[in-house]
């Protein structure tokens, strides 16, 4: 009771001066909002969570009450929260909660819904970097890699195909959320890997005669001296029955580690064999292990739905760039009957998050794909039920402090991928996720672009397409190959 008293006091104060209806009926249910905000946990530095009400034309009054302050907002069908008041409210509610009470005008009378609470926790990395592209098949229209300031709604291109007309770019990756250490791939007639480090831009030609393809799925070594990649022969095929659209599969795949200083791709027979598919590498936070997904090689596409990837790891010595002599299996596909993709260890080394689907590795096209969490200290893993939905959950990444994670989900409509954020505590318990807030509550309804590969970064990416143009148009630096 004591906890609620300040909210009641603030509410009464607000009620006296904010146009809150004098007469209303009470409804013992939470208001039908998009997005659903009840019970979510948000970072203290988050932009206002504007939302819309189920009835798009109805008048609304909403009270936002913190322990020490509050304000009200009026709207018609949607609520646009003043950024200044929101910021102040959040800062005053750190490690506490905000009560949100909504009044809706229905059939010429006001209805008050049951208040709900939003919990406020520590700040999240200020920027989110993602690729925007239509969730199509093989072609693309306007697309690019963009950075979004999570404390406001500002979105700027890092690089897009307005600048590089007709080209495609993908697989952006940062070293431990550092905006100054970035790489991404360009596709098309200027295809290459672009590496940004210490303010320098380098264009790499990563195809060697010894490897299957150009470098594909990346992960930085924490020292910034290496980047692990998969090399894959990827193809996509198209289903004919209503339940499924696309299947993306590897017919061959191996792992390599790019040594930035020596400009060499390093590998070992244990991670680049013919008998198995290896993909989605990621380094442990101490840099001494390389996690990856591995499946027994099968004829493709004939046996596409029998390929199941296990989560494995191999030791890696950053000093010599050599690999261990054995591979450990952490999550065995034979036991789970499922397939692992996107292993991502938290930066504190406590957990490893991965996606689990029925088969294959391109989980974004698998409705059953969900997020799982492996406790690296015990080796046990569990579904992150708090974050998952009936639809696809796929790519994910950790915040610098390992207390927030962002992931892509198709729960809104089953096709367009949206970035969701959730809090996770020291014991690995997650909270209910929320979509990255947008200024217009109808943004996601109208947007025809998917948010791919959401990556949190601690600051603004300063090297953008303008700075890279000259390097992009020059020939790429040819990388070398070595078996360790």
């Amino acid at each position, binding site marked *: 009771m004591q906890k609620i008293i300040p909210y009641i006091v603030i509410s009464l104060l607000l009620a006296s001066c904010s146009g809150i209806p004098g007469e209303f009926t009470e409804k013992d249910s939470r208001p039908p909002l998009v997005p659903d905000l009840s019970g979510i946990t948000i970072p203290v530095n988050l932009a206002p969570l504007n939302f819309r009400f189920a009835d798009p034309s109805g008048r609304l009054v909403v009270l936002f009450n913190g322990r020490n302050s509050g304000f009200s907002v009026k709207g018609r069908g949607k609520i646009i929260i003043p950024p200044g008041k929101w910021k102040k409210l959040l800062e005053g509610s750190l490690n506490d909660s905000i009560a949100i009470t909504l009044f809706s005008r229905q059939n010429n009378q006001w209805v008050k819904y049951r208040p709900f609470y939003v919990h406020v926790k520590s700040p999240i990395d200020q920027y989110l970097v993602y690729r925007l592209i239509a969730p199509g098949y093989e*072609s693309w*229209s306007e697309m690019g890699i963009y950075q979004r300031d999570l404390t406001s709604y500002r979105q700027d291109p890092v690089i*897009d195909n307005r600048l590089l007309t*007709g080209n495609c770019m993908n697989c952006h990756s940062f070293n431990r959320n550092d905006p100054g250490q970035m790489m991404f791939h360009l596709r098309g007639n200027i295809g290459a890997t672009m590496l940004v480090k210490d303010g320098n831009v380098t264009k790499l030609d990563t195809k060697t005669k010894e490897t299957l393809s150009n470098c594909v799925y990346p992960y930085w070594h924490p020292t910034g001296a290496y980047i692990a990649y998969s090399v894959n022969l990827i193809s996509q095929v*198209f*289903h*004919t029955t209503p339940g499924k659209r696309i299947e993306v599969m590897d017919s061959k795949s191996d792992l390599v580690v790019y040594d930035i200083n020596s400009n060499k791709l390093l590998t070992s027979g244990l991670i680049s064999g013919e008998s198995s598919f290896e993909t989605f590498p990621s380094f442990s936070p101490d840099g001494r292990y390389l996690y990856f997904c591995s499946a027994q090689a099968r004829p493709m596409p004939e046996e596409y739905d029998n390929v199941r990837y296990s989560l494995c790891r191999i030791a890696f010595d950053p000093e010599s760039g050599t690999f261990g002599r054995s591979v450990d299996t952490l999550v065995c596909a034979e036991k789970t009957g499922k397939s692992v993709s996107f292993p991502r260890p938290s930066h504190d080394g406590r957990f490893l998050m991965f996606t689990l689907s029925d088969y294959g590795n391109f989980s974004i096209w698998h409705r059953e794909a969900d997020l799982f969490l492996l406790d690296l200290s015990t080796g046990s893993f569990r579904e992150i039920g708090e974050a998952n939905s009936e639809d696809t959950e796929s790519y994910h990444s950790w915040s610098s402090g390992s207390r927030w994670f962002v992931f892509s989900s198709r729960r809104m409509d089953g096709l367009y991928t949206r970035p969701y954020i959730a809090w996770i505590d020291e014991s690995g318990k997650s909270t209910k996720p929320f979509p990255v807030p947008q200024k217009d509550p109808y943004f996601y309804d*109208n947007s025809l672009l998917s948010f791919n590969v959401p990556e949190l970064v601690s600051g603004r990416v300063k090297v953008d397409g303008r700075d890279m143009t000259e390097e992009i148009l020059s020939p790429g630096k040819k990388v070398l190959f070595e078996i360790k």
Partner: protein
Amino acid sequence: MPDNKLKYSELIFTGIFMSGIFIFFTFFYSSHLHFEEQVRLFLLTGDYFISTVRYPGGFAGYTGDFLTQFWHLPVAGPVIITSLLFAMQQLFRRVLVKINPNGSFFILSFLPSLNCAMILCDEFYPVSAVTGMLVAILSALIYTGVKGTGRRFISGIVLLFVTYFLAGGSFIPLMMMMVVHETVKAVKSRRATGKGSKEPVEVTMRFWQSLVYILIVILIPLGVKGFLIMEPLNLAYISEFYYDLRTGVPVAVPVLFALPAVAMIIMAFLPSGEKVYHRSLYFQYILFAAIVFAGFRQWTNFGAERTMRYDYLVRNERWDDLIEYAEKKPPRNNLSLAMLNLALAKTGRMGDMMFRYPQSGTAGLFIPFTREREYVAPMLGNEILFHLGLVNASQEYTFESMETIPDYNKGARHLKRLAETNLINGNYEVSRKYINILKKTMFYSKWARQTEMYLGNEEMINNHPAWGAMRKMQPEDDFFFRIENIEAVLNMLVRDNPQNKVAFQYLMGFYLVNKDLRNVMNTVPKMNALGLDRIPSSWEEAIMYVVGLSTTNLEVTLPFKVSRETKERMKAYAQIYTTNPNAKPVLAGKFPDTYWYYLHFKNPDLKNSN
């Protein structure tokens, strides 16, 4: 005293020119307009307005797209185009008068409008190119009307910035018109002061003024590119609203930009007195007519117009109209032929009529998506797949087409089809997204609102004549679709749904055009499930051909009922074919639309499986 004859000449010329434009786009080029409209998506929302006008030239783009949506209506497009070109001519006439008031050369004022009319014949030049030029000419008119060198200088700078913001690249022709205006005035001023006398300050001022304008035109885009918008140099200067393909700037764009200034320069050199040069008018008429003839010959593409007409009729499911149109204007390419074959299949006439037209193998039945960033083939190809019941494949083709629309826009036609395919597949929230977007358009909102009622209502969808049937036609077992494996795909469709008439006709058509008679004979018995009262003629002809290979007795008992007429014709055909050493021209005259003639003389590269 105004010359009445000249006045009437100008009136009549204007009337003829504008009527010609209207008639041309109404009766000879309307399918182009319909085609352009469907691959654009204009939303009546504030967000759409802001997202368009935030780029330099966005206002011209917005107004261009606003007007293009009316191309959906039969005569609105030609009316709007004619009005725009008339406005442009009238404004430019006033600009020219300030250079040289002699009315004998009024025809020069038609040049920008004529040029715009010509480029509109190419579907890659949007209407925003016209609205952009209109903004530039209007700005030029305002500029030339400002009195006082200093005030004009300031207004010139403002107009350059405003025009760049509103109309993008057309600030270049504006600058050129301003410089020409200043130069002509300076020359006149110098002439007025006489040789040897000191150059007036005004002349020097005009020189520096022009230099500043040129510098502004060079610097604004560099500033925008450097600090505001990440884009290549050509987009920074021209903007994307003059030509749909962003990969380059065609010669037509610099010509479009230079023409008003060139016309002004010519005007400056022509006599400026009050004397009317009637004879020169005749010369101008002839020259103008020659330009019209050569220009339209260069810019029009009546082959594409015909294909677009086929596409228009398919899109609106006017199958009988399409077959009627094909009688008058037979297909000239595989796109048109594939559309015609679809109409024949939809009306159940493929087996009877397909060989009346020049078939070209599988390429005339299906339109493959070439994966070469080309949007027309998959857009048309999706129609065939959709009506076959291959909803996922139709969706794939539609999406690929939408993502390869040259100006990076979305197409209303594409969203409509995607709303349908997702509705049929039960993906209601995705369908709702497309429907909600279409609800914000002027001409698709009614359809969107009606379709919205079907969302989530299984019973309504199952009872819908098209969508319900489509659900029943879907393949039962999943397989990977590849157009290269279309034979297997058609067989699966027929196996899963023997009543799928369209698929069955296509399967038979596939075997027939590929001269695969073994599979024709194997497939014909399956037609019983279709409940046809007779065997279509080309199928009968194929059957009789096979019979004829093994026996001379065409009255042999067959498991199929072949008509007497076909048997008689077969005898007559065989008689000529076997006895006449020069049979081909004779048979071409007597039996051009038979399967036998196709089998013997068309597409010899296709193997005869027999």
